[in-house]
């Protein structure tokens, strides 16, 4: 096990597949078909490989596992280092699971530049997995920013009519955050003399510096998650992106922000985190209430789900900053379940978009008459989105609110209004799309899910119920890492003085 560089394999196998696709020559149809198949097989093999780390993951240690190390820039003390712990491991699996589904979802609706499209997706997978596995700040930063390149291309080339506006907005928002984060990374390097993440986790930054570093990282993560009021890029990006682009964006890219808070902001800048907690709570509560109300008023299905994502991620930031076991585990769980549920919801919109080519809610109505299977699956994920017990959505929200109630009942009560509003906009959406009499002529012959689509939804359906009824296997992975995270933060906070925490945090 030590000899097999499994994480590098997972990271770069998609890149190999992309190179392979690049070399395909010949007739346009043949190229397209081969590109699809290579992309599907590469990503499927990658998924199967990723199960290896789940099977061999040791849930009893908080140390990074499957660690790989190679000298990169020894003069600057920068190296290529990979590894996962209980916080990052499941996100790798989420990514490897969703990529083949995305390829499958693009099987028919992408007909132009198929080769380039599939390459973009495989490259995207490489960057995403690399981001979650990176244990060196520089490596992390490279992956973190590189993800935007294929994402820009996917939106900008295969997107809708306002794709240029959407990509420029995404660029403007992320640029600010990226520049500040880069500055922060330089400052951290100057203070700690290393970019090695495990070392940085036990390094005590002076409280004044922490404040600035925290703010710089916050600028980047808050945009990614996204938090109110830097969320307005998300609805536009989602609306313009092709279905699979929306899926990856909602399911994985948004998690970068939450993951960043848990990996960097909380453990490395604990004093600043505590200081800014009221800010986070305020922005998150505004996000939950504000975006839920906005979602209620939407006329575009994708926009509605995009806004609901902002509300759901508001729960994540609340949970993470409660600094309680339930809150943080809930935040991770919520990110995973949102990964599954939002992916499914965007795929659900994609199914009817492929048939009718409209995202307007008013273009639909009465679909249940023609599409009973579709209606059932939509119902299931709608319920997961509103956090019905027995689905994945419940566990995360419940744990987060338990944690929030411990810290401040007001926060829990205000955030819990999201449960009511969330039900309102989702039920209202479902009613307008699925229920009612079938009166529109162009819908009369609409077909139910085909086998390919059922194959896409099947794993998501299984997961969303499994994670709702028996979340043990997922929560077990987090326990030790989260406990350790909290212990370290609390020792650092108790110690107060810089440097005092190193001794107790040797477990890293």
């Amino acid at each position, binding site marked *: 096990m030590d000899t097999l560089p499994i994480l590098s394999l997972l990271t770069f196998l998609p890149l190999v597949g992309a190179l392979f696709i690049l070399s395909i020559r010949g007739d346009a149809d043949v190229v397209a078909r081969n590109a699809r198949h290579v992309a599907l097989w590469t990503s499927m093999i990658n998924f199967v490989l990723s199960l290896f780390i789940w099977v061999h993951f040791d849930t009893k240690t908080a140390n990074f596992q499957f660690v790989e190390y190679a000298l990169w820039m020894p003069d600057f003390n920068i190296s290529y280092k990979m590894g996962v712990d209980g916080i990052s491991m499941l996100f790798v699996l989420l990514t490897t699971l969703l990529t083949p589904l995305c390829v499958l979802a693009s099987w028919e609706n992408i007909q132009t530049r198929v080769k380039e499209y599939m390459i973009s997706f495989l490259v995207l997978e490489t960057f995403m997995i690399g981001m979650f596995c990176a244990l060196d700040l520089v490596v992390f930063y490279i992956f973190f920013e590189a993800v935007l390149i294929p994402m820009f291309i996917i939106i900008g080339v295969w997107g809708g009519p306002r794709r240029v506006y959407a990509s420029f907005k995404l660029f403007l928002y992320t640029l600010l955050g990226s520049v500040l984060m880069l500055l922060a990374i330089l400052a951290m390097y100057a203070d700690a003399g290393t970019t090695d993440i495990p070392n940085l986790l036990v390094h005590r930054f002076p409280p004044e510096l922490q404040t600035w570093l925290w703010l710089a990282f916050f600028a980047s993560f808050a945009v990614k998650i996204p938090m109110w009021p830097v969320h307005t890029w998300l609805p536009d990006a989602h609306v313009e992106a092709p279905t699979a682009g929306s899926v990856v964006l909602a399911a994985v890219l948004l998690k970068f922000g939450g993951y960043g808070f848990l990996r960097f902001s909380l453990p490395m800048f604990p004093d600043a985190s505590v200081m800014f907690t009221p800010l986070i709570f305020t922005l998150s509560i505004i996000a939950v209430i504000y975006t839920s109300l906005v979602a209620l008023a939407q006329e575009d299905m994708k926009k509605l789900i995009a806004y609901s994502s902002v509300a759901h991620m508001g729960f994540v930031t609340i949970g993470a900053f409660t600094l309680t076991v339930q809150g943080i585990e809930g935040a991770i769980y919520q990110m995973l379940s949102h990964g599954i549920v939002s992916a499914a919801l965007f795929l659900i919109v994609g199914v009817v978009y492929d048939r009718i080519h409209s995202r307007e809610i008013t273009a639909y109505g009465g679909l249940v008459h023609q599409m009973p299977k579709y209606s059932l699956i939509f119902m299931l994920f709608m319920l997961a989105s509103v956090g019905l017990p027995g689905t994945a959505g419940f566990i995360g929200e419940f744990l987060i609110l338990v944690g929030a109630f411990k810290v401040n009942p007001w926060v829990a009560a205000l955030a819990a209004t999201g449960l009511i509003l969330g039900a309102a906009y989702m039920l209202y959406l479902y009613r307008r799309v699925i*229920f009612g009499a079938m009166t529109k002529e162009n819908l009369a012959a609409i077909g139910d899910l085909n086998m390919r689509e059922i194959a896409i939804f099947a794993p998501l359906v299984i997961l969303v119920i499994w994670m709702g009824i028996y979340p043990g296997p997922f929560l077990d992975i987090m326990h030790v890492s989260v406990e350790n995270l909290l212990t370290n933060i609390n020792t650092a906070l108790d110690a107060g003085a810089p440097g005092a925490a190193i001794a107790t945090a040797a477990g890293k």
Partner: protein
Amino acid sequence: MMEIFAVFLPLLGAVIAGLLAFMRPRDSHHPNRIDKAAQYVTCGSMILAAVAAGFVFWDVVLGSNPKTVELFTWIDSGALEVSWALKLDTLSVVMLFMVTSVSSVIHVYSIGYMHHDNAIPRFMSYLNLFTFFMLMLVTSDNLVQLFFGWEGVGLCSYLLIGFWYDRPAANAAAIKAFLVNRVGDFGFALGIFAVFILFQSTDFDTIFAAVPNKANATMQIFGGEFSAITVCAVLLFIGAMGKSAQLGLHTWLPDAMEGPTPVSALIHAATMVTAGVFMVVRMSPLFEYSETALTLVTVVGASTAIFAATVACVQNDIKRVIAYSTCSQLGYMFFAAGVSAYSAGVFHLVAHAFFKALLFLGAGSVIHAMSDEQDMRKMGGLWRLIPVTYVLMWIGSLALAGIFPFAGYFTKDVILEAAYAADTLAGGYAFWMGIAAAFLTAFYSWRLLLMTFHGAPRADKKVMGHVHESPKVMIVPLIVLAAGAMFIGYLGYESFVGHGASNFWGNAILVLPSHPALEAAHNVPVWVKYLPLAVAVAGIALAYLFYLLAPAIPAMIAGRFRAVYLFLLNKWYFDELYDRIFVKPAFYLGREFWKTGDGSLIDGVGPDGVSAAVRLLAKRAGALQTGYLYHYAFAMLAGVVVLVTWYLFTH
């Protein structure tokens, strides 16, 4: 093992029937084969579950053998540990037995009632699924699993209210039911959190054991310091108010009548709406330690009892009358719990399940006979045409009105006596409101009977020509329920609230010695014992006067007191009020936040503003590059002047 069968057989039935719903009949000679299969599977699984529940009843209640069956861990995070488990004590097994038997009866009835429908497997699947969630609710051994069942029955209620999804009214009612319940669940969820923070557990046994030690604990919450037990109990009660349609959160229940009638009988009369009462009784060891919470429960229950009864007196839709009646009866159950007569509340709950299901199904039989007409103003003169239904409705009404020796006589009287015997201000309020509501109950019940079955037929000839008695598959279930409505009160009295009660209930319900209302209820003055019966008879007499002997009087009163009449007819204007203060503002705010907040403010100042500013700046900067030498020379000269001036002034 039997308890596993009782709880999970309905789930199995639901899954099988659900799969059948997706199958198309291949055999053209037997187009109903799939419908039949779904009916056999669901009814079969329900009846088997009821039989299993009978065995459990025999073991746990009669054999005094309460137990908890652990299934597997559900949530485990830090100190929070929640299991899937079945808790079987007298309270849960009484509910288990009641739910499975009433549900079985209603399943069978549905075969007849729904036989014209084109989605029978789906309907039967929902009914089975509902029963499963209800059983998970009542057998839960912790608050979180209770919440699972709680939301699950809410989901099924939503699905079944909106069962005929082509009707806009049904869809609107379904969403309303879900959302109003969510408002209650908001309180319930916060209550669970508060309980967990206080007790470090959500398991009933752990909580109940720790309550006495926490009796004086306080909790800093929402800007004040309150008794921790009171905070927990009040928050949980908000959840109960939503599910059991108590005053303020009741608006969904009348609208829920958009669903098929068997649904109204099963969910919105017999089982789901009583979940709130069940929860308060289940949490009796907690509520007992909070006088504030008990007083609140009493006042809300009593107010709902009278409020709903007043509204029921003027409604014209046969199902809505019964729906408001349900709301009112739930109020009785709550104030019974509020005066610590929990077992009396459960006694009424069980009896009510039978006679109210009977009334609903009887109403369904009437609607069925009248070609789907529900407006009582268009009925009348039916009793000769559907005599069996008529007799059964009489039995249900006698039980509801509390006439000796029908079930309601025993169960409602003991509640009123306990309220009187509680000897508190809230108890007194509940007693007099309860007496007034009992009068109105009898009045509107006979108003319903007389308007529906007596007088001259008001429907057109065609409808009257079609009126027919329902088939056996619908009548037999009604007879079973009627038997319950007749005998449960008499048979159950000793065990539920009489001398055998302490033996019967075991440790399922806790009543502190300082709350002896139920004990004292047996020793109230004679007039208290007979007053409910007297007002019921008076109510019946008044109904006869108004609707048979002098039919001009109601119209005259309605005309004279028009404002009051409209106030009642429009259900105290709750819907209009909520629409004005919640629904409309939510949509308005959503639109404003979207267009103004996101559009003009955030985007306008943010990305769009920045890009506009950059473009403007570039244009200005570009305009400077004129290419004329003298422009540049002038700018240079100006610069030199400024520099020199600055130098001179600073030195």
